[in-house]
């Protein structure tokens, strides 16, 4: 599956940080999918691989012939040291709770120190890390000060590989506006918090730019004394340097030959890698990730149903027993009933009145008569 991605031309900068005129097309690695989860996982696994085994002595806590005194001696039943004549005699032994006893679960040397990581995973992580190093936003969010850098990714001419004086290296970094990143390193030099201080990890600082070269013709010696600057060869790209701490986006400065080698190393999607047997760049899971564009596309629009445009509003419940309208809604005949009932009531009333009238008249006439 070929991927149509925009791969612009990157200008190569000379020692004075001016466009030297030559350009390199962006290697396909820089358009590989960025998977911070894979990078984080692989980096974690890799960092386990440089551990030194440690454990407590096998014999620790067991170099006694202690035996429990059993019950009936008004003491706890842990094994106690035999013999007499010293403080040690009669003291508890062997247990993790005892002084001078063996610890709980003594650390063993056959702990699984190193981790095996699938080659493809390692390569995936590396591709992601390289791709992320080409995105200025990610490099900035990692904390590198690249506000004035001319271009990302930053490619310098091969002349730099012949540097052998640190002075030249510093001048180059200044011209490229990468010196602020190095200054940041200077400012953050401090002592480590914790016991690492007495374990040969006394000083810490932030990291500065990473210089990736094709051929070392003195370059390493020139740059290595600058604090924060790391150097690696293209052929030996290291995830621990490209994504330190498991976070992608280290500020990388490439030399031209290094930059051009990337296509051969990792391949483009059209072509397999030349230097790695049977390897091609990782395929993204989705080629089109713009959600809004997807939703508007014909294929999807054809299949989805119409949107429900009905607006349901909350209505107030009216009591039919008191509210005439509500009653009518439920039982339209109720109007008729009511009307007729009203008529009947009226008729009755009239009759009653008439009767009364009659009675009154009758009594009146009677009176008159009498």
């Amino acid at each position: 599956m070929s991927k149509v991605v925009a791969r612009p031309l990157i200008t190569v900068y000379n020692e004075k940080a001016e466009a030297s005129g030559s350009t390199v097309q962006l290697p396909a690695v820089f358009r590989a999918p960025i998977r911070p989860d894979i990078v984080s996982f692989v980096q974690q696994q890799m960092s386990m691989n440089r551990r030194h085994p440690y454990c407590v002595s096998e014999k620790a806590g067991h170099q006694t012939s202690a035996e429990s005194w059993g019950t009936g001696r008004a003491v706890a039943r842990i094994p106690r040291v035999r013999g007499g004549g010293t403080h040690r005699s009669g003291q508890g032994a062997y247990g993790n709770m005892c002084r001078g006893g063996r610890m709980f679960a003594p650390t063993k040397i056959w702990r699984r120190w190193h981790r095996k990581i699938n080659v493809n995973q390692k390569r995936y992580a590396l591709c992601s890390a390289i791709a992320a190093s080409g995105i200025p936003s990610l490099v900035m969010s990692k904390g590198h000060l690249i506000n004035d850098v001319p271009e990302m990714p930053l490619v310098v001419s091969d002349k730099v590989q012949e540097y052998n004086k640190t002075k030249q290296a510093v001048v180059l970094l200044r011209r490229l506006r990468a010196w602020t990143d190095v200054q940041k390193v200077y400012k953050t030099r401090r002592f480590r918090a914790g016991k690492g201080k007495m374990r040969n990890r006394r000083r810490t600082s932030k990291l500065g730019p990473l210089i990736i070269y094709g051929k070392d013709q003195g370059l390493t010696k020139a740059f290595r004394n600058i604090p924060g600057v790391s150097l690696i060869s293209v052929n030996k790209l290291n995830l621990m340097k490209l994504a330190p701490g498991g976070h992608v986006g280290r500020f990388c400065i490439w030399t031209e030959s290094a930059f051009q080698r990337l296509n051969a190393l990792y391949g483009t999607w059209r072509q397999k890698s030349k230097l790695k047997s049977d390897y091609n760049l990782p395929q993204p899971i989705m080629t089109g990730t713009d959600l809004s564009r997807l939703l508007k596309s014909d294929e999807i629009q054809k299949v989805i149903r119409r949107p429900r445009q009905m607006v349901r509003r909350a209505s107030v419940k009216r009591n039919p027993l008191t509210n005439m309208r509500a009653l009518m809604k439920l039982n339209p005949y109720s109007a008729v009933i009511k009307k007729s009932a009203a008529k009947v009531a009226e008729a009755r009333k009239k009759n009653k009145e008439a009767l009364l009238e009659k009675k009154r008249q009758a009594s009146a006439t009677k009176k008159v008569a009498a």
Partner: protein
Amino acid sequence: MTMYILIIVWSIINKSFCSYKVNTKTQRFCRNEYNLTGLCNRSACPLANSQYATVREEDGNCFLYMKTVERSGFPRNMWEKVKLSKSLEKALRQINEYLIYWPGFIKQKCKQRLLKISQYLIRMRKLRLRRQKKLVPIQRKQERRERRREEKALVAARLDSAIEKELLERLKRGTYGDIYNFPQVAFNKALEEEEDAEVNMEGEDYGEDEENEGEEAEEEIDEELEKELEEESENEEIEYVEADSDLERELESESDMEDIEPKATTSVKDNTRRKPRLEIEYETETLSKNAKRTV
């Protein structure tokens, strides 16, 4: 393709790490200098939006910064800077012109931001015209120290005695001419001093001078009292001359008792009595007095 990148950028910034993100209990802030609202949101993040604009203020001038997709790969030239006019109306129209087809959120926020900035600039200008109050914090330890030192200095200066000396000197020099308003306490003090001085020097005139000086040291007594004193002295002169020894001893004892309170009543009489006496027999008395005192 860029959309895809931005989605990834935002998912990383949002869920993972962003160096500009600051978390508080209620809100997420963005410390990026180009952020429009100062909050960390999908719509307000300058890193996660390819098309973005802000209004920033520099030395009283407002600038409109714009960022577009085309320049996203070149951090140095990414932000286009436009100077806005100083009048708010014109500046708003300028914003409308530059951000004409931009999303409504950004237009709205830019204008709001411009409004706020212009408001605080006005306020700043007004403040500068008024008297500026400078807040100076109180240094507790220093205040405490200074207060104590002031007290000590006050005690060390001994203002009373200095004033006394000064006034006495002035009397000596004669700057006051002839004044007879002598406060009792000062008079007694002066008398004592005279006694001591006379032991050393033996001078009638000197004694008189000292009297006068001592009396003038503290002007407390009213003129009326002083007049009475003078009258009494004139009257009593005759009487006291007759009974010397007894009265002198009484006076001595009284003068010995001169600590604080009894002075008020007795010292008046003493002053008047002693005036005439000093000339003749005082010396012997002082000698004896001293002898008593030493014992």
